């Protein structure tokens, strides 16, 4: 289908698809997990007034935020203050560009896909530092500095956890990693494919913990710790700039979950042996429609894990957080790489 369209048509579809792939997960995550799941875990109903079961609540909230005045503190560095949330959101949009959703439903078939994803995810740190500094507020600055220290510390275990997958797949291209997982066999069994969560379970756990920290979700939410720092680097933001931070937070959660499902859970594919496919060329065209749905379901499962941890655990202390990254996660991830490399050579 895509082959018959002109280049600009394909590009336009990809750009629109990218916007959908960022905003739709963000909206679903906020409604299903933040509004409903958290409420049920706390024995309350959550929003019920706007629409059936409060499903229109999100639109009401967005409308409320958009109406508010675009405020900036008097002493703030206004230009940087206004730019910062956009940089955070831009990093999310750059991130989704490498996620494959089907045999032809990809945005960029990037050879260094995994590496690119890890690189652009660190761009959001710049936005957070800018937000913290330009607010001219001690709490904001401390939140920004905490966020930077935390994101740098947890980027390493994340990169190292992914290297195990890259070694096993022999490629950095996310599309090929997905194909490999659905085409391989495990213990001579073909019907499951070989989702890397089975062979790279340690890597998956380290990756998910690091993602939790990169997203500054609760056990790792010192940058916005409300009892210490008001709201960290977001303290001075209101109106639609706060909305952008808010969308950025949950959209990034969705995109990281998409990347995690592509790396560890078999991505958009079903095990190819079910339909007698042997490589990506055999994959039927309907996978371009079913693939995104499979990705969406897997993303919701991964985000469910993230949110479950978020609503269950108390916050770490700042020194515990740093110690956990450098003394626990990084050694485990390094050991995982060595073991994977040895097994890769042995088999």
């Amino acid at each position, binding site marked *: 289908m895509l082959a018959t369209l002109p280049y600009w048509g394909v590009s336009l579809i990809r750009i629109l698809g990218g916007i959908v792939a960022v905003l739709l997960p963000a909206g679903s995550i906020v409604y299903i997990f933040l509004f409903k799941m958290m409420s049920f875990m706390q024995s309350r109903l959550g929003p019920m007034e706007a629409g059936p079961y409060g499903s229109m609540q999100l639109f009401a909230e967005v409308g409320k935020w958009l109406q508010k005045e675009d405020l900036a503190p008097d002493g703030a560095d206004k230009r940087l203050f206004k730019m910062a949330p956009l940089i955070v959101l831009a990093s999310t949009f750059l991130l989704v560009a490498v996620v494959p959703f089907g045999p032809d439903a990809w945005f960029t078939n990037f*050879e*260094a896909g995994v590496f690119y994803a890890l*690189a652009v995810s660190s761009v959001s740190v*710049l936005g957070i*530092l800018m937000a*913290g500094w*330009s607010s001219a507020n001690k709490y904001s600055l401390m939140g920004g500095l905490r966020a*930077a220290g935390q994101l740098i510390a947890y980027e390493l275990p994340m990169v190292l956890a992914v290297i195990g997958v890259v070694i096993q797949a022999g490629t*950095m291209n996310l599309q090929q990693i997905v194909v490999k997982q659905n085409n391989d066999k495990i213990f001579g069994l073909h019907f499951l494919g070989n989702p890397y969560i089975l062979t790279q379970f340690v890597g998956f756990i380290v990756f998910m913990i690091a993602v939790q920290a990169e997203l500054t979700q609760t056990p790792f939410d010192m940058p916005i710790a409300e009892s210490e720092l008001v709201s960290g680097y977001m303290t001075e933001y209101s109106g639609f700039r706060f909305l952008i931070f808010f969308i950025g937070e949950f959209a990034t959660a969705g995109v990281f979950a998409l990347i995690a499902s592509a790396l560890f859970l078999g991505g958009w594919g079903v095990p190819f042996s079910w339909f007698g496919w042997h490589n990506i060329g055999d994959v039927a065209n309907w996978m371009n429609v079913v693939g995104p749905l499979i990705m969406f379901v897997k993303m919701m499962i991964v985000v469910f894990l993230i949110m479950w941890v978020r609503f269950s655990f108390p916050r770490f202390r700042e020194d515990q957080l740093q110690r956990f990254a450098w003394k626990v996660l990084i050694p485990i991830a390094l050991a995982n790489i060595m073991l994977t490399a040895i097994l890769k050579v042995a088999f």
Partner: protein
Amino acid sequence: MIAVENINVGQQVGFGIIALMMIVGAIRVVTNKNVVHAALWLVVVLAGAAAQYLLLAAEFVAVTQVLVYIGAVMVLFLFGTMLTRSKVGNDENLDNRNGAMIGIPVALLLLGTLTYGLLKTYKAERLPLKNTPFNIQQLSDSIFSHYLLPFWALSFVLLAAVIGAIVLARRD
């Protein structure tokens, strides 16, 4: 000399626009009186370099540029400046005009040497336009076979730097 055939017009236009942004950014880095703004202009220059690598179809180098320079080096720069001088506003001492007397000649000398060296070495020779996609496996194969010794030497230098940092930072 630069040959006129075989030019990819889109790439040339892209190069021009990004190069202009990089030049403006670089000038703003040295003339800006606000240290955080100067650091952020440096981000523009480094991101421009990454974009140029992408135009040259060097994906891996471009991504490395983003990961190392924007994701790590610049974040540490900003982290350091914000931690030590967190004042919002201009610092009149920052723009060191006297440095221009040395800085501009050195920059021009560097430009001249590089241009001379490149033109003299390669003359009319041009890299062939490749239509094959970039291959990371080839890159890693060459790093870990052909260039293994330099790679080890670099790793050793980095290890020394890491140990040095620990020695400097430890108080006991």
